[in-house]
């Protein structure tokens, strides 16, 4: 079996937004849709003892997604490899999945023609992988800092398996039981 996951190394991310722009460019997203924002609370602490880190976001491709069972038309679905995606042909954009997602990683555009809006979300670049099975998602490919690592968790030799098995990773809102599949290596600061 294949289980796609992503590891995000926050120790390497510098908040350059390259992933955001690469994603929107190659997935041809409308302007107001951002699949993978790079969030930061800014420098925290009291000057000069401050620290800043970035949290690159994307759909968490949960093992137990909130957004799939709630979909009334079957547009929101999950592949066997864990990829959660929305079939634009089937989506009527009722936005119940948008409201169901605890991570806010889905939305429909406000720019597109009024009668052809559908819910969009990160697909781990499903289209690109369909064309070329070895393709990496654009956000991973474009990352100068190699802060995003994509791979198959079911393959014990994959880089992601090795990292998740050996480095302390965190997941977002794990307590909700969604079993998110994006693993973060936190940047805890504290340099010499």
């Amino acid at each position, binding site marked *: 079996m294949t289980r796609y996951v992503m590891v995000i190394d926050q*120790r*390497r991310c*510098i*908040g*350059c*937004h*390259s992933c*955001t*722009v*690469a994603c*929107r*460019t*190659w*997935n*041809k*997203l*409308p*302007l*107001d849709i*951002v699949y993978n924002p790079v969030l930061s609370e*800014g*420098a*925290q*602490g*009291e*000057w*000069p003892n*401050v*620290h*800043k*880190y970035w949290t690159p976001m994307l759909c968490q491709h949960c093992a137990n997604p909130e957004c799939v069972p709630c979909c009334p038309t079957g547009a929101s679905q999950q592949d066997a490899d864990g990829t959660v995606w929305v079939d*634009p*042909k089937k989506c009527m954009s009722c936005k119940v999945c948008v409201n169901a997602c605890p991570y806010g990683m889905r939305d429909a*555009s406000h*720019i*597109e*023609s009024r*009668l*052809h809006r*559908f819910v969009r979300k990160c697909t781990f670049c499903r*289209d*690109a992988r*369909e*064309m*070329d099975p070895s393709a990496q998602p654009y956000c991973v*490919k*474009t*990352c*100068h*800092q*190699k802060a995003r690592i994509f791979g198959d968790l079911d393959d014990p030799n994959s880089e992601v398996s090795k990292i998740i098995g050996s480095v302390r990773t965190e997941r977002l809102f794990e307590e909700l039981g969604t079993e998110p599949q994006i693993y973060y290596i936190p*940047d805890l*600061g504290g*340099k*010499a």
Partner: protein
Amino acid sequence: MEISKTSTGLKDIVCPDTESTEVDIHAEGVEVVKSLCYFCHANCGVLAYVKDGDVIKIEGDPNYSNQGGLCCRGTSALLHVNHPARVNHALKRVGEKGEGKWEQIPYDQAIQEVADKLNQIKAESGAEAVASAGGTTRTDDFARRRFLNQFGTPNGFHNALLCWIPTFMAETCVAGWSPFETDLGAAKCLIMWGFNPGASTLPGNRGYLDLQKAGLKVIVVDPRYSESASKADLWLPLRPGTDAALALAMLHTIIYEFMYDFEFVDQWCDGFDELRDHVAEYTPEWASEITWLEPELIRTAARMYATNKPGCIQWGCTWDQIGRASTTGSHALALIRAVCGNLDVPGGDGMPGPAINYLTDEELELNELLPEEMKAKQIGSNKFKLTSWPGYQLISDNAKRTWGKTLPSEWFCEAHGPSVFKAIITGDPYQVRALICNATNPINSYGDAKMTIEALKKVEFLVVVDYWMTPTALFADYIFPAAGALERPIIVTHYGATDSVMGGRRAIQPKYDRHDDFTFWRKLGLACGQDPANWQWETIEDAYYEIIKPLGLPVTCWDDFVEYFRMYYPPLHQNKFKHGGFWTPSRKVECNSTILRELGYVGMPTYVGCCENEIDTPEIAEEYPIVLTTGGGFMPYHHSEHFNMPGIRFLYPDPYFSINPVLAEKLGIAYGDWCWLETRRGRIKMRANVEAEVHPNVVFAPRGWWFPERDGSADLDNPFGCLESNVNVLTSVDDWDCDPMGGSWANRGLMCKVYKCTELDHDFTAKDAVWSIPGSSNIPGVTVMPSDQHLDREKIPFEKPQPDFEVPEGYYWVWQDNNLYQKGTHFRLDASGWLINPRTKGYHDAYTGWRYDGNGNCLVDDATGKKYTMEREEIVEICGVRCYPGAEAAPYEFPANLTWDVELGYARLGDKPYIYDPNSGWMFDPATCAYHDANYGYMYDGSQGCLVDLESGKRYSMSYEPMD
């Protein structure tokens, strides 16, 4: 950007058609072109997928330094090529200036009209009345200088003075070249000083992170908790603009805590004792008050750098943007590297020198065509001498004496940009009538934007070459469309300051009527009547091929070089100084620089505060109590670019300045509030980013802001909103605020006040756009003429030592090393009476200049390839065999069956035309250079290992046995 198709019909409504947006790069007919990104200096590798003459997709080149990575800007290249607001045709102004009415005319017609006007101005006011402004290095700069030199004007300029050039010159004064390259793989410590690769050179940043993980100590000096600071081992959050004090204090600490490299200093540093005494007063305690850093922190940094050897200091733009204190800081830093022995050593700062193996930019500039009297007319060269002709001449001549090649005059020898703008307004020192802006929008990128925009409005003839209708282009008489990334080949030679070269191909021919900059300058040059022989290359690819031809690679055109080599790195040469010394006039690291002294400056870094600070100018600090720093790069923009790329702009639509929460609370400012930032020169508005990334008394304002979505012509006081959020309204270009050596103007460490926009005081009005010289928010107009503006430092008269002997004709004497050099070639006249070529270390004949060839014990004229004897008689060689025509007897022995031919000068076998070679004992056929034996004249057949009698066709073994 394609937004989903509008579809019709019932079927589309109930089953919408939303096909995959994926582009198939493996489809038939798709070609991969190795290109380079062109949106910042990092020039990442890009693979462009081209189908039917159009790029369908790009991606980062995994086999390039960016390892497949591309940032926001690079990724947007396709959207840039096809952006609907790109300038695509030559535009001629038909309305009033700034009215925004244009007529599209053919490119060549526009070129001719511009050329005629330039020639007319030249005839009326002299060539110097034509100036040219540039932006970043991302143009074909050698072509521009080639044009200007042939046209005869010295007034080309860039933002160079804010970006590395003064630093380069100061470093060159100290050690003979700029430590351009760092050998980080072997380094133990790295200082990133005013440098934030996290927002500027992303591939580099990845490298730093990797190396840091492997143990490299990273010290970041930055007043802001930058992206890079967030990953650093040690961060020095100094008060903006006080870099010189910090550098001097670190130098003091290194020297007085005896952490310098004794052996190196002893052997290779000149004037160290003077320096030691000079920096005695610059203690960390002294610097603490200025820099707001604890003395212990300064010591810690100095110790970390000096004891973790070898180490590197990475140059940062800040060094050149502090105004009058700029070069002092970079000078001190150059000395820190030197006294720690980190120059030209493994793991230290590299000293690559100019490219020896391919043509440097300088060799393409035709500087020799610019008359001396025009050099003297270069605006600003009487003030900021280090970076204009006076300083360049000294440094360049020295480089030719030491390296054998030199740095280009483009960038390193330029007019002082703001002074040119002032000259346009005031006519002082003379009226500049025409300005050609190539790849720059000076309103946003040069200091004192209000004065700059006035100059652009006032200049009689303005030509702009650009991608966009910028605020500058709005006032142009002619606009030429520029080819962008993917539409032009790219060469990366780092201004000609290092010895490596990288290249990228043109993915597609320029669309519409766009042309690369080389073509623009070439066409303009030819239309101006310049000699076609000086514009010998038809295309930029031809010119680039000319550059790399001396590498001797097996390629016949530029595209092949890119395809098969892509880059050239010469073998890493370190410790070069151990054989022949450093590349200064004295051949040592000059702690008390002779070049600086010759130019009238102090030879050692002497502290001066930045132009506005609490200690030197308390009266300013009283009214403007907050320290402002500007100019730092920030993602996702580059300089004033990309504000019209919606996909990028969406992430950062409004300008935000950073303010500490403590200060924000004191001023009643909340996150996102629009606020006024005001200095003595004017005010702008930005939104507040309340964040503890800056000191509670510092604000950081990003550069470049304009609003291309607006109608430029609607408000000519503030076209495209180019003044209202433009930090350059706040910066100063007054001569006393500029660096007296390098001419850098003041971007950092300024004093300002910050207050919230109110209902009644919310809009940027015409009053806020009023210009003045010198910069002032309340006294408009010209109050002090440029010539009357004094510098921060008086020149120190320097009496150049004179030789106590007569210098022979054709030579000149260098006082620092007491040597004679040949004029023109700059070869040193050795005590042996030979000239020495610094590039090859070869000996040349002092009379003819011919090179001595030790193998043949002869002289070689490299220009013609002819050889001469040591008596300067021409050597005749046929098939590599030396002949002695006219010699009565052979100067060597030969077999008895041969005869000496006096006329031809070699031994012959009967009447056969073969030439006897005394070295091998064989004979050569002069027509084919084939071997023939000396007994019978049989030809040697290497494939069979036998001899062939050409007359009979019979074959013989090597012992003359007949063979079947």
